């Protein structure tokens, strides 16, 4: 519907709307500011210059190890979770048991984090699986799975199965039809699920710490440091890098889409 020329009341309402969005963003981004400041503050700066804390990231082998593990687990979780979620959503469609399957997948959300961690750990012990990157990943995948599944389902909710039938009749078997037709159509949902999974992985501490075995993640390391010896400026520097890199990436995306729109 075309909006007629805005009246002053409407202009005020618009201002209110965008003011609200801005306010929420301020609240969400405000906690980013102290870490950034801390990454540039402290004694080491006098010794090593403005970016001393950033260099210190590389001097801390525990942190470097943690970063590596975090990235590995993040990658595994971001790849495996959407795939599993996709299989589950497909199974739900195939077998038309939405309540049962959805209920099952949502269950891990309802178990308090520590308890899920302990229960998973005991379960692994019963199965004879030793703690490793694998156990950490599994725990995080189960945590991210409900989110990923809900996201994928919302996208699949608007994918018409007739497209698959058309592909079958044109000679594609189930796999080919899925690969060549459905997958390209629900790509967005998979990306969304992957993003959700990655974010959840990056924020998971308590479940992971119980099955971490001989490895740290940035989160478990940071939580332990926070409790016992304090956070090093290198950790604040790392967080600052993450924000800056992501915002830059996002700005890049905006510019690229803008440019693609122009012609």
């Amino acid at each position: 519907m075309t909006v007629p020329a805005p009246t002053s009341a409407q202009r005020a309402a618009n201002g209110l709307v965008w003011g609200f969005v801005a306010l929420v963003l301020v609240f969400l981004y405000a906690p980013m500011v102290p870490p950034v400041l801390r990454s540039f503050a402290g004694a080491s700066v006098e010794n090593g210059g403005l970016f001393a804390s950033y260099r210190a990231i590389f001097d801390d082998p525990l942190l470097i190890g943690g970063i590596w593990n975090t990235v590995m687990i993040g990658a595994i979780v971001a790849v495996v979770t959407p795939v599993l979620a996709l299989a589950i959503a497909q199974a739900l469609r195939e077998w038309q048991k939405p309540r049962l399957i959805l209920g099952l997948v949502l269950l891990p959300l309802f178990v308090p984090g520590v308890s899920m961690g302990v229960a998973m750990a005991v379960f692994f012990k019963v199965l004879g699986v030793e703690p490793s990157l694998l156990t950490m990943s599994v725990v995080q995948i189960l945590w991210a799975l409900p989110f990923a599944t809900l996201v994928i389902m919302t996208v699949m909710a608007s994918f018409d199965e007739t497209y698959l039938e058309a592909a079958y009749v044109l000679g594609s078997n189930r796999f080919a039809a899925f690969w060549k037709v459905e997958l390209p159509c629900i790509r967005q949902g998979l990306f969304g699920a992957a993003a959700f999974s990655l974010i959840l992985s990056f924020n998971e501490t308590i479940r992971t710490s119980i099955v971490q075995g001989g490895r740290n993640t940035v989160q478990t390391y940071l939580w332990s440091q926070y409790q016992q010896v304090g956070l090093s400026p290198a950790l604040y520097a790392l967080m600052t890098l993450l924000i800056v890199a992501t915002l830059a990436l996002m700005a890049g995306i905006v510019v690229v889409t803008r440019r693609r729109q122009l012609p």
Partner: protein
Amino acid sequence: ADGTVTIADIGVGDPGGDWTKFKAATGKDVNLVSIGNAPSAVVNQLLAGGGQKTFDIINIVGGMQKPLAEADLIEVIDTSKMPNFAKNTYIDTYLAEGSPGFDFIGYDGTLYGVPTVLQADSFGYLPDKTGEIDSYGAFFDPKFKGFVALEDNYTTTGQKTALYLKANKLVDIEDPADMTPEELKNVIDFLIEKKKEGQFRLIWSGFEQGVNLLTSQEIYVMDCWEPMVFVARDKGVNVEYASPKEGYLLWAMAAYLVNNPDRSDEETAAAYDLLNFMLGPWYGAKITGMRGYMTNPMAAEYAAAHPEEFSKEEADKIAAIDARVKDKFAYGGTWQNRWPTHVEAYEEEWQRFKAA
């Protein structure tokens, strides 16, 4: 395994990731895993989380032998495999069998832990705001209402409160380190009453938070660990660590040998090598310098004698810390009891305090 000794540690035992000296001496690598110090974190890791198979050593605040040994999670220590053990005179001085300090490394007359850190805790305060303070009574002094923080820990805060109440004869307490459920209830009732009066700004947990509370001057009196005071001073805040007339709360960290039936003799030998290394002078000096706790008698001496490894400044700091902790031990106090007889009542009562 595979030539690497894995040690789970609460962060205090990490010499900045530098294990070159150990590697040079033994050819083994060290894999350090950061874990929490809360019993839940420790026990979950070992009991449920498969840590028994992963970790060779677990270095945490001592006093956990009872639950760990009874659940067969740790092994008896064979001191003969660690030449440095005998050289550590602090053990005999402060942690000898039969003395209350032994409860931090042994259980039922058996040695389970290697002491890695020793310390005596009281509380910190901002003299500019409060003037000189020499009693735990400051926690409950109406003058500081709303500017007091306690630690979220029933075996420290609970015990310090008990010390105060007993010393001032406010509550009948036989042993502040091991209270009966009735005594405990009285202590907690007292805390709850104070809490309701708005005496406490917060119950803190975590080193980072503690330091922040001091540097931001959010609170004036804080039940805390001495290294927090060091860090706050480094940041230019005038903080004192009190010498309370009721005495200090003494404690030690212990490195336990994790009971792993699958571990080979060779691996066990490597683990002992690491324990021995952690009893050694370089490691002790490093940890004292970095973390602010007393370690072993050779640390200060070693730092002073090795200017290529420790600057004069660092060596002085290490010596000062060592001397101060010894002073505090000399003044004395009570030993913290991490696993009191009625530990479940402690937990339940503490829940009551926090939920009140």
